[in-house]
């Protein structure tokens, strides 16, 4: 799946790094706890989260995640968008809940970012 497919499946808004929408992604991980993400995630996963602060970008940076999806209508501030641009990270925003967003992506073939 490409990031642009996620945009379509979720009806998400692209906030930054539109030029990177052709990046391939195979896995996703959804959590609002950053240490959990760091404990379980595989590389090249997409992060779904309802948490909005700069540490979300830093956490994604540490494990080279190419894309962050903010769910429940949460929106990053300008500073976070700048940070994501500096790190070539696509940010998407979706109005959907965590459960629904994950469910739709799973149904379309995206799998969990945890070794399972």
């Amino acid at each position, binding site marked *: 799946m490409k990031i642009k497919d996620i945009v379509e499946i979720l009806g998400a808004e692209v906030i930054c790094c539109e030029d990177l929408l052709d990046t391939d992604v195979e896995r996703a991980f959804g959590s609002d706890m950053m240490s959990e993400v*760091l*404990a379980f995630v595989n590389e090249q996963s997409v992060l779904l989260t309802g948490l909005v602060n700069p540490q979300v970008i830093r956490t994604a940076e540490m494990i080279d995640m190419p894309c962050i999806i903010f769910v429940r209508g949460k929106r990053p501030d300008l500073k976070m968008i700048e940070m994501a641009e500096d790190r070539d990270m696509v940010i998407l925003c979706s109005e959907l809940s965590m459960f629904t967003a994950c469910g739709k992506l799973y149904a379309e073939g995206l799998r969990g970012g945890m070794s399972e």
Partner: protein
Amino acid sequence: MMDSIKLHYDVPGDDFTRAGAASGDVKRNLKTLGISPSVIRNVSIAMYEGEINMVIHAGGGVIDVEITENEIIMTLADKGPGIENIELAMREGYSTAPDNIRSLGFGAGMGLPNIKKYTDEFSIDTKVGEGTTLNLKVYIQ
């Protein structure tokens, strides 16, 4: 033969938004040096968890990183409250973080276990009322 590279960071304790800046900088340095992605990842996660702990539990501190030909050595030292029971603190899910920290996405009690998991050598020196020092090593295979 590569000379060892030394990096030093002061981690402010009053600025949660900047926490992780030191770890990001080390990550960029390691990339420039052509270190393998899996080593970079282990170093980044371990150091970032340590840096966050320093900010949320100990009011900041200092981090020294030494990159040698065979390993990356990280020393994270703070003058915070110290850890009373290390065995308990190392347990997955154990956290003393208050609700306001949890609402920032931390306090799952996974940080120290993560640090242990992603490093090849790990030790904690801590004394209640004096502070905590983490000594970490990741081997470069």
